[in-house]
């Protein structure tokens, strides 16, 4: 056996020989995907048998699938055999030792975004041990949550400590066979977050700040599962406004939400991955499957997202409105600048009686970017008196960018009402001149107009994040006009 380039078989053999636990740190599986790699991932994480079986089913299914071609995006073919599917958490020692060693440009952006000083270090990847504060902050949060009975932990911890919950709900909203990227994720997902809110509990805090501190390095195949029991409430915030640098080009995440009777889940995303430079070099391909299941009557799931990052975004947070009187909402701001391509939207599937959905999508395109909204509203027979309202607005900055709207409406229930409104506007020369004539600088004027355009979405965000989101927008659109 060659010690230089051990193949997967060797590695697995080695692992089995030495046991899993001691070998956990500091190794990466060579690029490539096959059944052994899937087994290896599961073994490394000491997963129970049901999970390995589930991963394998997904992998075998994936082999017979082809990458979807219909999204309004273009990219060079992804070589799935060139990706390494397991990489143990990198030692923090490789990172910068203090803020002095961090790229000043990055710090400047944090400042513009108004990110608190003590968080900047963590975001910039400074070894956490050097950042005393945050650890205790996280611990305080954790205590408060467990007092309320809320489980909030990494996916791996959940598999270890709450396998019954994971088994009961994993794949119950996004089945392993769902689509090319979700299936790939099911086979190889690395980690992610798990939230469980017991019956009748209102989660005592926004699950946001905590997340920002802890989940900066969630990896490439992330998996999130949120379960809200009867009558519970939770507001979860994913991502952060700080630019995330990441060497992994392909990201294929899955998010599953389950709302039981009378439960409410609010899921907010502020996503700001590196979009590539002005010429479209570098940047992340973000292919995400997000779906919420309003399983119980009178439940509600609300997606709010502000997307400014990624080279390519392909993402359709959806709601399955199964419970009677359940409510689905989707509020989105998607910004595409330079060479970014965004293909986003939502699906609202009305099954229960008197279900209601609201979709407000704001697309902003600048530079040479392409921004597409793709929305499906489906009303099944028996979804009596279901109602949908969709509003889809596009704002163009400059004349080299594009906005596209693809609404799909399938109504099989005669008592349903579906309304769709769409507008496309150029960032008004008139509006811009009006502001300049009142003495505003061009930058302030553009920010003001864009923020006004997005207002209906921003007001859905948790308070402290709305401000950051506004700042983020202005950073993303810097120099877009003029």
């Amino acid at each position, binding site marked *: 056996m060659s010690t230089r380039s051990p193949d997967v078989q060797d590695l697995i053999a080695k692992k089995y020989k030495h046991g899993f636990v001691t070998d956990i740190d500091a190794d990466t599986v060579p690029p490539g995907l096959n059944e052994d790699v899937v087994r290896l991932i599961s073994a490394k994480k000491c997963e129970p048998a049901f999970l390995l079986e589930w991963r394998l089913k997904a992998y075998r299914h994936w082999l017979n699938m082809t990458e979807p071609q219909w999204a309004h995006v273009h990219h060079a073919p992804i070589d799935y055999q060139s990706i390494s599917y397991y990489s143990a958490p990198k030692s923090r020692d490789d990172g910068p030792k203090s803020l002095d060693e961090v790229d000043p440009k990055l710090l400047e952006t944090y400042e513009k975004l108004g990110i608190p000083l003590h968080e900047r270090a963590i975001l910039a990847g400074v070894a956490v041990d050097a950042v005393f504060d945050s650890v205790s902050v996280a611990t305080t949060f954790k205590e408060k949550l467990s007092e309320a009975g809320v489980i909030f932990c990494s996916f791996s911890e959940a598999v270890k400590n709450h396998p019954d919950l994971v088994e009961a709900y994993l794949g119950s909203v996004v089945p392993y066979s769902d689509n090319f990227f979700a299936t790939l994720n099911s086979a190889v997902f690395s980690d992610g977050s798990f939230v469980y809110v017991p019956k009748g509990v209102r989660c005592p805090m926004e699950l946001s700040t905590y997340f920002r501190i802890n989940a900066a390095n969630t990896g490439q195949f992330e998996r999130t599962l949120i379960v809200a029991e009867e009558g519970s409430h939770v507001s979860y915030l994913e991502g952060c406004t700080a630019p995330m640098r990441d060497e992994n080009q392909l990201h294929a995440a899955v998010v599953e939400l389950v709302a039981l009777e009378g439960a409410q889940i609010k899921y907010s995303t502020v996503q700001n991955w590196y979009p590539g430079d002005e010429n479209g070099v570098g940047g992340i391909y973000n292919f995400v499957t997000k779906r919420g299941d309003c399983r119980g009557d009178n439940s509600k799931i609300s997606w709010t997202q502000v997307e400014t990052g990624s080279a390519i975004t392909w993402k359709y947070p959806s709601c399955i409105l199964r419970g009677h009187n359940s409510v689905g909402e989707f509020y989105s701001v998607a910004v595409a600048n330079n060479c970014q391509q965004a293909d986003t939207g939502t699906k609202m599937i009305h099954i229960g009686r008197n279900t209601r959905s609201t979709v407000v999508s704001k697309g902003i395109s600048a530079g040479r970017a392409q921004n597409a909204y793709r929305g499906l509203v489906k009303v099944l027979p028996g979804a009596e008196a279901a109602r949908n309202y969709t509003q889809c607005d596009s704002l163009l900055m400059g004349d080299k960018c594009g906005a596209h709207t693809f609404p799909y409406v399938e109504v099989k229930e005669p008592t349903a009402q579906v309304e769709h409104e769409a507008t496309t506007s150029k960032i*008004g020369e008139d509006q811009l001149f009006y502001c300049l004539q009142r003495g*505003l600088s061009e930058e302030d004027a553009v920010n003001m107009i864009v923020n006004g355009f997005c207002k209906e979405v921003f007001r859905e965000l948790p308070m402290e994040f709305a401000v950051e989101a506004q700042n983020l927008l202005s950073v993303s659109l810097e120099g877009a006009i003029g």
Partner: protein
Amino acid sequence: MLKVTNLHARVDDKAILTGLDLEIGAGEVHAIMGPNGSGKSTLANVLAGRDGYEVTEGTVEYDGQDLLALAPEERARRGVFLAFQYPVEIPGVNNAYLLKAALNAIRAHRGEPELDAFEFLALVKERMELMHMDESFLNRGVNEGFSGGEKKRNEILQMAILEPRLAVLDETDSGLDIDALKVVAAGVNSLRDPERAIVMVTHYQRLLDYIEPDYVHVLSGGRIVKTGDRTLALELEDRGYDWLREAASV
């Protein structure tokens, strides 16, 4: 204060101003009248520095400075204000927010400290009373869903708050009912000041009953073809513009 000399301007390769001369002193009120399409709004836009209006000849001097060399926001900060003929709606942008940003940008240019929220609100409320405007307008989007007359009133409110040196009012009287006209006229009159010049573009001599101009000009075919006092407006009301066009073409 303002000296326009032999101004030629074009829009989309179409010559619109063709040698316009106009001189305005501090404290004066000028009315500019003239047929549709003669170039009145074009003049206003050129003075304010709107993109797409190309000056091909002539000069504009403002307080001894070359106005045309300044960016639109620079002109605004130095006291040039344009009340638009068709004020644009900016959805989602709070009316008060825009006003405050504008006022503070102008104050910063003058070297004055920013107004805080309280001082600003006090000022705005006082001026809104003057314009008989309900405070609810403050929290609406800029001109969003305002009626035609409300938009015009909002323009004058902005003028009252920004206190420009040179205000150009482009058909502010159009679309106002008779009561609103009186309110707006009272507002403008209260802003008459020895340090401030006001230029009113209008089609109706009625406005001039309420705001008495020092001079009345007729703009036709891209030039000022006649200048007089108030009585010229009365004469125009009687005779229309044809006699002036004929006079101008010889």
